[in-house]
């Protein structure tokens, strides 16, 4: 247990320090959101209607961008081999790493959401709804993305391959995240239905992600 806590602490520290690059995700999120009005026009009514979708897409791409670093740095300096060989179950270690990554790279996205909501003319309820759905949904993005990150590191290929593999798997999260935000803003559906499915997706990926990532690390590294 203390090994896992130490792993989480270490990963968060590395991510937040110079060279960690977790906060670049927030900057990317901001830039993508700022780009959107240039593409669809500065009409505030339209922007507030598209707002939840824009924020969700931005968060999806930002979390994908930072995923590349989940295993690569550890693989380069050899600490990944130590983690694989250690007595702590690899599944738990993977889950701990993903949790640390989510705290360092996913949580800042949610904290940035209210400010970006202002830019997109979202009112209080809408911003709160998007932030809540992101809070429930981004763990699913991190934990399914971790599978892609583990595959990419065993193949020594990152970047585009990772995106191509992970993006189709994140479609359900996107659908229910945007649907829950829209339900909170305009109805007619109750917010609870899509939101609880979103939570269920996160919980399921919490189980599947570490096992698949650990399997691919165990079989792939040599």
């Amino acid at each position, binding site marked *: 247990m203390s090994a896992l806590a130490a792993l989480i602490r270490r990963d968060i520290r590395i991510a937040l320090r110079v060279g960690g690059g977790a906060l670049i995700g927030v900057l990317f999120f901001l830039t993508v959101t700022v780009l959107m009005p240039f593409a669809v026009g500065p009409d505030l009514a339209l922007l507030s209607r598209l707002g939840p979708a824009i924020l969700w897409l931005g968060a999806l791409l930002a979390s994908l961008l930072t995923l590349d670093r989940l295993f690569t740095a550890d693989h380069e300096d050899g600490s990944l081999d130590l983690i694989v060989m250690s007595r702590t179950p690899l599944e738990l270690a993977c889950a701990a790493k993903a949790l640390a990554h989510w705290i360092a790279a996913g949580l800042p996205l949610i904290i940035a959401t209210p400010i970006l909501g202002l830019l997109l003319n979202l009112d209080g309820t809408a911003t709160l709804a998007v932030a809540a759905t992101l809070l429930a949904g981004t763990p699913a993005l991190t934990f*399914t993305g971790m*599978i892609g990150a*583990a*595959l990419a590191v*065993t*193949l020594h*290929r990152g970047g585009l*391959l990772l995106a*191509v*593999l992970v993006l*189709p*798997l994140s*479609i*359900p999260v996107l*659908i*229910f995240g945007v*649907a829950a935000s829209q339900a909170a803003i305009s109805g007619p*559906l109750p917010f609870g239905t899509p939101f609880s*499915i979103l939570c269920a*997706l996160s919980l*399921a990926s919490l189980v*599947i992600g570490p096992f*698949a990532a650990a*399997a*691919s690390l165990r*079989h*792939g590294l040599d």
Partner: protein
Amino acid sequence: MTLTATLTDLANPTRFLALTARILPWLAGVTAILLAIGLYQSAMAPDDYQQGATVKIMFIHVPNAWLSMFVWGVMSVAALGTLVWRHPLADVAAKAAAPIGAAFTFLALVTGSLWGRPMWGTYWEWDARLTSVLILFLMYLGLMALWRAVEDPSRAARAAAVLTLVGAINIPIIKFSVDWWNTLHQPASVLRMGGSTLDKAFLWPLLVMAIAFSLLFVTLHLAAMRNEILRRRVRSLQMMQASRVAFASEAGAGAKEIGAA
């Protein structure tokens, strides 16, 4: 017991090659005959009272759509074979199946949109079924990209096996969420294809075509597996040759150095 014995027997690629060399011509022949019968029956089938002659697209479309999902199932079994039983032919089977599955999925999409043009008035509709098949197609392409990203086949095989199994868990979830998304956006605006029960005049050609296409998959799959085995043999021979050349030149350079000293 006999099944496991046969599977263990087939673990020897040479035995597999010999067996498939005997089976393949027969399989190809039966497939061709069944396809001919199925196509003839489809052409002779009566027009639908609503859809007219376009109903005949169904005889191609439905087998392709059914195989697009079946092939992922075959790959999932092969992925288990790679990860759990380490069967030497499992990753060959998985690799050979991916492009064939992608082709069936692509054909299902194309025939579907050709049918949609006269029926719905548009080539593409963000209908739940179409959308989930499109996502399945994207996943096939991603899997093929993964196979092509790495030179070492056994390394690529284990990665692809993990991705195939994750996909097998995820495909039903994606299907469910796309259904949900579609009903939220546009309730009941889309014509349903097999709304009523099929008439016997349509059922028979469809059955024959489904069997013919399944046999076509088996034929193509076995042929592709043979090609993959032979390709790997060529690759390992080339690598042996390359290492021999490298070793010879290294030894030659070393001999020269010793001679110079």
